[in-house]
Every structure is written in structure tokens, then in C-alpha cells.
């Protein structure tokens, strides 16, 4: 640039400006302003709120247990309108951690305006990102949700204790994105009957999503801690994954 004469530089900048303004097929000003939605994650154990302190809960099999850690990935959020059209959030990866309150508030920006009737997402990290090498942000392996010996993300971690467990501990780590041990699950949640999520520029509606820890251990497979108290991917992880498809429910919506 230094060597260009001022007139040439001016000409070049005009060309560049023209190229930039015509290079995208969509004119941003023609699109109505998008909105923002906040997803509020809430963790419960049956009828009780989840506490990482010293509270004891009971699973469907009657086994007592305490929880010290509860974290999971949510990815590829999709907002669906009544007419079937969908908004797929790009770069959609979130790590929700019971011990980090801010992680339970997921702010989704740039949602096209409209009335939405439901949403879906994947529990875990899609297979593409499991094989894409070093990632950043929520997917940074430094977050501790990554296996190095069998490369891939841990999708969900629940750790704690149970008197029924053979060694006293509970370590449920799910993961694995390849058949036959694929623990990725997509959940589709219609909003409550008659409720619409209205998205527009002037407001930030909140949708509350509740995850019930008890449902990790019941549903398709009843987990008895005396038989299974630890998973690290693989076939046992799939048993838990088959349950966690029903872990989430949509609660109320508010402004």
C-alpha cells in the first residue's frame, strides 16, 4: 500500500468498497431485525432442586445417592416455527455446569423474528467436532470434558456417591459418537400447549428448561448402582444416554 500513489489508493479503496457491498447475496438491511432468547437451565432431582451439597436423593431402584458434579454439553440448537420452518443456530455449543450459575443462562442471539412453537438440541457434541482437532470456547479440552486416550468429548458428567455402589462412588461419564456406542441424543421439545415463543428485536424472552437427574437412571434402562456405578463411554454409556433423551422438560416462558 505504501508504494501506491494517493489517486491509485483512492481508486482501489472505491473498488474494494464496491466489492464488499455487492459480495454478499443478502442485503442485511432487507432482513428484519433479529431477536435474542435466553434459555434458563434448571436442575432438579425428582421433586427437589439439585444440590451439590450434602443432600441425599433416591433413584427409581431405591438406591440412595449424593451428587458432587453435574455438567453436560448442549449443541446445535434449533428453533422451530409452527409452519415447520427452522432456525439452526450456527456454532451452537454450550457447556452447562451446575456449579457455575452463569453457565445455566444460555443467551441465543440473532434468532430471526417470529412465533416459535418448539426447540430441539443435541445432548453432547456432534460427531464432526469430535474429529475436528483442537477447538476453543465451550469446546476447549481445558474445560475437562474431553477424553484424550480415546479422543472425543465427554457429553455428560454426573459424579457423586452411593452406599449401593461397590466402591462407594458414582462416576457416570457419557460420550462416544460412533456406532455401536453412540451416546449422542437429540431432544425435541414442543413448547407447552398454546404457548408460543415470540421473538422480536425489542424483547428477550426467557425459556426455562428443566433437567431431572433422576431420569438418567430410569426410563429405558433402570440403573442399579450396585451393578453399574461408573461409565466412561462405550456400551454402558449408551444405557445412560438412552435414558437422558427424556431428561429435559420445557417449563414456563416469560419476558
Amino acid at each position, binding site marked *: 500500500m505504501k508504494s501506491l500513489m494517493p489517486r491509485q489508493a483512492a481508486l482501489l479503496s472505491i473498488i474494494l468498497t464496491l*466489492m464488499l457491498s455487492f*459480495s454478499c447475496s443478502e442485503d442485511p438491511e432487507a432482513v428484519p431485525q433479529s431477536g435474542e432468547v435466553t434459555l434458563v437451565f434448571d436442575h432438579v432431582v425428582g421433586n427437589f432442586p439439585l444440590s451439590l451439597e450434602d443432600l441425599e436423593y433416591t433413584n427409581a431402584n431405591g438406591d440412595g445417592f449424593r451428587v458432587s458434579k453435574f455438567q453436560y454439553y448442549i449443541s446445535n440448537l434449533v428453533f422451530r416455527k409452527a409452519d415447520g420452518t427452522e432456525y439452526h443456530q450456527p456454532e451452537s455449543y454450550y457447556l452447562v455446569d451446575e456449579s457455575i450459575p452463569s453457565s445455566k443462562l444460555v443467551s441465543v442471539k440473532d434468532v430471526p423474528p417470529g412465533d416459535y412453537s418448539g426447540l430441539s438440541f443435541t445432548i453432547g457434541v456432534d460427531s464432526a467436532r469430535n474429529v475436528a*482437532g483442537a477447538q*476453543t470456547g465451550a469446546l476447549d479440552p*481445558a474445560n*475437562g470434558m474431553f477424553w484424550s486416550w480415546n479422543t472425543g468429548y465427554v457429553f455428560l458428567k454426573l459424579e457423586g456417591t452411593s452406599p449401593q455402589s461397590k466402591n462407594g462412588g458414582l462416576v457416570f461419564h457419557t460420550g462416544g459418537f460412533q456406532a455401536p456406542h453412540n451416546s449422542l441424543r437429540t431432544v425435541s421439545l414442543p413448547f407447552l400447549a398454546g404457548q408460543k415463543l415470540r421473538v422480536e428485536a425489542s424483547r428477550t424472552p426467557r425459556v426455562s428448561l428443566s433437567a431431572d437427574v433422576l431420569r438418567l437412571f430410569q426410563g429405558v434402562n433402570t440403573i442399579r448402582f450396585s451393578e453399574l456405578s461408573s461409565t466412561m463411554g462405550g456400551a454402558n454409556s449408551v444405557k445412560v444416554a438412552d435414558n437422558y433423551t427424556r431428561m429435559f422438560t420445557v417449563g414456563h416462558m416469560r419476558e
Partner: protein
Amino acid sequence: MSLSSFRLGRRYVLLCAALGIAACGSEQDITPAESPSFPAGFPEPIYSYRNNPVTEEGFELGRALFYDPILSKDGSVSCGSCHRQEAAFADPGSPVTQGVGGKEGSRNTPALANLRWSRAFFWDGGGNHLELVPLAPITNPLEMGENLSSVIRKLNRDPEYVQAFRKAFQHRDTVNSQQLFRALAQFMGELVSAGSPYDQFQNGKAEALTPEQKKGLVVFKGKCGTCHQPGLFTDHSFRNNGLDADTPQDTGRHLVTESPTDVGRFKVPSLRNVALTSPYMHDGRFGTLQQVLEHYDTGVRRSATLDPALDGPTPGIQLSQAEKRQLLAFLQSLTDQSFIGNKRFAAPRP
């Protein structure tokens, strides 16, 4: 040789970006105009550098990190402690890895070369991406025993590293793990070995191999080349080569897949520089190549998952004394002096 072409490629990308060609988010469609940086006869690499173009700064940073024990828990072990250049980046004489506090691992340190052509890493293939390979030794309590966030914290506290990362990755931010892994991937990816007498022979220099080695090459192609396919000298498969009759303690590939048919299978290693990488096998049980050949000749043991190529009325690969001599001579011709002597791959001077 390759760095200048990569620089050119990067300029091309920058120019395209400046002209607005990439302004619609189709960045990934741009193929930098880079000439192949790999030896003739090698296939397209699996790790393409597309998301991590090699630069002098990035490579040098990766090299510094590779030889820096800062990556280990107590500052005592670097990648280079076990991956020694004079042994083609294997650990000469150690059957299994030696980690922090003198802890012993359970497997033999693999040699490092031509890693961009690997789809799966470690003896059991549990690693699926070159960039993330270092995470396993860094975090293994028996190897470097460190955790990743602690490594990143240490690097961010070191002004020289912060500056080197900023230069290598063109930013003014803090160091993150992606930059750590990408710098290491640049160094590891450039560890290309294709300058052995065998390669010179392939390139038309008939006198590069001795008559005995030429005979060995013929035997090799007939009896070893199915698995150790010439070129990369591996077919990247996982096989049970009959080391143990019973279910071994280390079940190999089975640890990754949980499939009973994978018990006792391990990755077929490349044989490049094999004369330097003793001891052999996933557990380093054989000290010499002679022992390895004896194993294939008379030591192969039957089990449910023994590789079909080694099974038969008499399991193994029958070799005459002359064939063994010729094979041993040939295997020496895979030693690449230009690789182990390359100063660019050596520990940087402090």
C-alpha cells in the same frame, strides 16, 4: 523448502480476504495455492494444514514446546524426553515410557515420523487427530502428569511464550489450548522421513542399496509388505500378531472399541527408521530386530483374534536363515540419516 510455499499460501488467503472474496463466510472453500510439501509416492496427507498453515514462527514455537518440560506437572519431562531425535523420536532402550517421578507406563514410546499420514494415533488408535495427540501424554499421570488448564496458565505467565504465541498466531490475546496444540502439530507434522537409502533407491539410485538389501527388499515385499506397505511402511490397520496366546492384560484396540474381535490387536507401526527404534512391539518386549524376525518365524501364538495373514497349519511367517539376513539388511536401509540429523528438529539452543 516447504515453508516458503506455505508463506505464499498464506499471503494468498490474506489477499483474498482483503478483496472481500471470503466475505460471505465461504472461507473454507479457499484452497491456498500451496505446492505439495510431501514426498513423491506418499498419498495426500490426512492432516492437511488447512486450518493450521505452517509458518516459521509456528513451527519454531512448536519445536520449543516439544522440548520444554513446562508441559509436565513438575517440570521434569518434555515430549523430547521420550521421543529422542537420535532414535527417530522413539525411546532407545526403554521397553515402556518413563514419566514424572520415574513412573513407568505400560507401552513402548512410538517413533514419530510422517504423522500427517496417520488417521489414528497410539498403539490402540484411540487418538483421532494429530492436534490432540499431545493431550494424552500431557495428562497421563504416568507420563507428564499435568492438566491442560495448568499448562495454559504456565504458558500465559511466561512473557516469552506469550509473545511467541502472539507472533505465531497473529493475535494480541491470551494463549489458549488450540494454539498450543496447533503449534505442536506444526512441529510434529513437519517431521517427515523420506530420505533413507530405500527412498534413494526408489528414486532411481540403484547403488543406494547393497545387493543383500535388494534381496531383502524382495523378501520384504513378499512376506511383510501386506501390513507394512512400502511407502509409509504401514497399512494403518490394527492386527493381532500373535504375541500372546491368552487374553493379554493390555487388550489394545479393544480398549477403544470394546469389541471382542479387537482383543490383542495393535496398530501396525511404520518401519521407517526401525533399526533405531528398539525395543519393539507395543510393550517393548523384543530388544532386537533379530528377535522380531524369530517371533514371526517360530514364535507366533494362536488366539481367537490372531490375524488371518499369520494363521495357518504353522502360524507365523516362515523365514529361512538367508531370508532373515536379507531382511535385517533391508531394514537398515530404512534409516534416514537426514531425518535424525536434521538440525531443525533438534532441541533449540537455550
